[in-house]
């Protein structure tokens, strides 16, 4: 699924402007590709009360430099708890207030279900917007 839709996204190019680096521990891995005005963050593992501080720390640094948008690829997350959810919401609010957008990319069916239960389906920008069943 991730690969299928990757074509429609700005690929992190290997140009001199791009910067790719990865951080993470055993529970959450974060890979960050920074381009001129936007940023692609790929998460894998579990986003929960114990790993959320790590992501929050990374996002604080990124958010100030992002001008147009931040794409958060969550297709490889296996677990999101309410703290993780609150972090996504907080980032959405922060970017919106500075005129940028947060795109939640490639959620698994279970992540979609979580967004639905939590009333976030219409609130967050989710790509692709719906699952073809």
């Amino acid at each position: 699924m991730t690969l299928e839709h990757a074509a429609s996204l700005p690929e992190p190019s290997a140009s001199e402007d791009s910067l790719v680096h990865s951080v993470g521990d055993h529970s959450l891995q974060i890979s960050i590709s920074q381009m001129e005005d936007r940023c692609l963050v790929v998460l894998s593992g579990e986003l929960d009360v114990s790993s959320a501080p790590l992501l929050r720390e990374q996002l604080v640094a990124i958010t100030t430099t992002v001008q147009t948008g931040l794409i958060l690829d969550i297709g490889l997350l296996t677990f999101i708890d309410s703290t993780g959810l609150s972090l996504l919401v907080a980032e959405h609010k922060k970017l919106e207030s500075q005129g940028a957008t947060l795109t939640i990319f490639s959620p698994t069916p279970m992540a979609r279900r979580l967004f639905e239960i939590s009333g976030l389906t219409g609130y967050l920008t989710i790509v692709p917007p719906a699952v073809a069943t």
Partner: protein
Amino acid sequence: MTFPDGHDETKIEEPTEEEALWRLVTALASCANPFEVAEALAAEGGGAAGGSFANMAILTTEANLVHIVHRPAVDALGNRWLTYELDDHVPGCDAIRNGLPVLLGSVEEIQARYPLLTAEMEEAGLQARASLPIHGARGETLGALGFGWSAPQSFDAAQLRRLDLIAQLSGLALERAKGTDTGMTHGRMPGVVETMPNALFTMDASFVFTYINAEGERLLQASRDELIGINLFEAFPEALGSEFERQYRLALSSGRTVVFEAYYGPLAGWFEVHAWPDQQGLNVYFADISERRAETLEREQALAETQLTNIRLSFLTALSTQLAGARTRTEIFDRLCSSVVSAMGDWCTVVVPAGDELVRIAAGHRDPALNGLARRLVGGYPHAYSGPSPGVVVYKSGEPLRLTQLAQQIVDELDNSMASAAYGRTLQLMGDGPGLIMPIFSRGEVTAVLTTVRVGGAPFADDDVALMTDVTACVANALDDVTQNETQRETVGALQAAALPSSLPTSDHLTLAAGYRAANEGGQVGGDWYDAFELQNGWIALVVGDAAGHGLHAAALMAQLRNSLRAHLFDSMGPSEALVKLSTFIAVQEPEAFATIICVEIDPATGDVVWASAGHPGPILLRRDGTSQHLRGEPAPPIGSAHLHSPNRAVEHRFTLSPDDRLLMFTDGLFERRGIDLEIGLTHLMITAEQTRNSPSPERACETILEEMLLGSHDDDVCLLVADFTPKR
């Protein structure tokens, strides 16, 4: 919640596992008797299951005995038959008796369910076990298959299908083989018995040899021509009056299997013997264990010598690592006990001062069978400061105390009460011997007393006391660390408790019940709450909410959310409007906050319901007609996601309760489990809720649901609110 990774279905089998399965199928096809089936299984079954060993248990029809073939992987002695009573508490027998698989995915599970197997598993390097019943064509149980793995197993569906396939193949092979062989009969023995590496002979009821296999000839140092037709006591006169004779006669007279170890002088060897009777006489299966006995003795001696140096040196390091991970006082003392009984003594207990007595807070015993007994002492038999207990003496003096026969010396001092008698008996059962009683200091005061006993062992020497002094210092450090955390937890816990309503509104038409469960000890106190109160117009408002985060901040936020929402709802603005107001208020006051809330209002006169949710799971409705439904609705985003100028509007949902309908509101901790699909969790909750439909009261239903759903540990706190609509007719 867990999202399926989508790779399970396309899992590629290891080629070696596949090959092993084919080898197994081929081997099973040519088996002529049950023993060959068992041998084929033992040889190929482990690989076919992706594990390191397999064995097979065959249920005998006559005597309710279970024979199990063991492979070298699990038994240093090599292949051999073990015989169990069907009632024995081992996985194979349990699988046969219940007709259900026994799945032990981890060492912890093995320890919990079959503590006596733990040592054997460790020795064999196994971390997971499974036993599956083998069924015949008519559904009868023929035996069981055992598997072992050197790594923990999750037993997913694909793996269970594979194990089941092997069990079915074995069932077919066993059934076919039974037609051609009747098992351990006399006369012509199947080839496998002749060539098996274990010694076997059979005798008739008057102790005349009828068969002996090759290994038997070697061990008894006599050929079959010399033995068959000859009386046992004629061939081996020294056996007369020995343990061998006694045990063989016992087997014949009782009709039961006997298992014993005995020394036979003329052959200068120790033998482990299994003898089981049948109609023709006695089957005797035996092995020379002289070497094993010698090794065991040597090992014990070597161990005793190194114990004084290596074990004690590493003991302190291991202990401080153990204690560093403990989050509560109880955890510290529990870990202390298990460390102490593994290195310093056979059993130990810890008492702490409480009021004007010493109360036992932890206990442990080296012997797993007695550990349960030791742990029953926890909380019981307090020592009054005025009493004669040696623990009190040490508590008051702050000096270590050594006793030569600790249990006896305590019992001698006890009064004649029933409680004292039970206490004394427990101490004696745990075993008597030299005891060492140590004070544990924290901030200059004795904060606990540790008692250690060596059952029948050597008295505690001065260097033991020195080591234990280091141990108690280590414990004191760990205690200081957790005291600070616990104080904070207590504050948060108190705040949490204060935020929950002390009573629920009562009405002739609506019966309410609610439950709150904190996360397991050591977990965080969270921000879950429920609320219920009557509105000015006579409706009842029900609220369940979950403030994100843990600790003091979440609890404080929760209290604030609860109070604001109460005020809004009380103004009769309806759940949707109240949530909008709250959302706006929070956007200004607590821009970092995040919470999910469900508000439900019920008219007790008519059963009319209005509800709205801000990011919270909808209620479950159990209808009187037996149907049930999770009301999903259209939740607004959580509180904390809105901007000041664009509040999120929650959709208001309406329906009407019929008499005897039951409504459940809950927080996600009730159904969310890491590693378990969100929908499965919700379905589990609905099924559990349906099973309580006949509970006479919502209190009972609430308790049952919490209990059933929270089996095992839960690292989140949980709220459940139950409302029964019971209008007078």
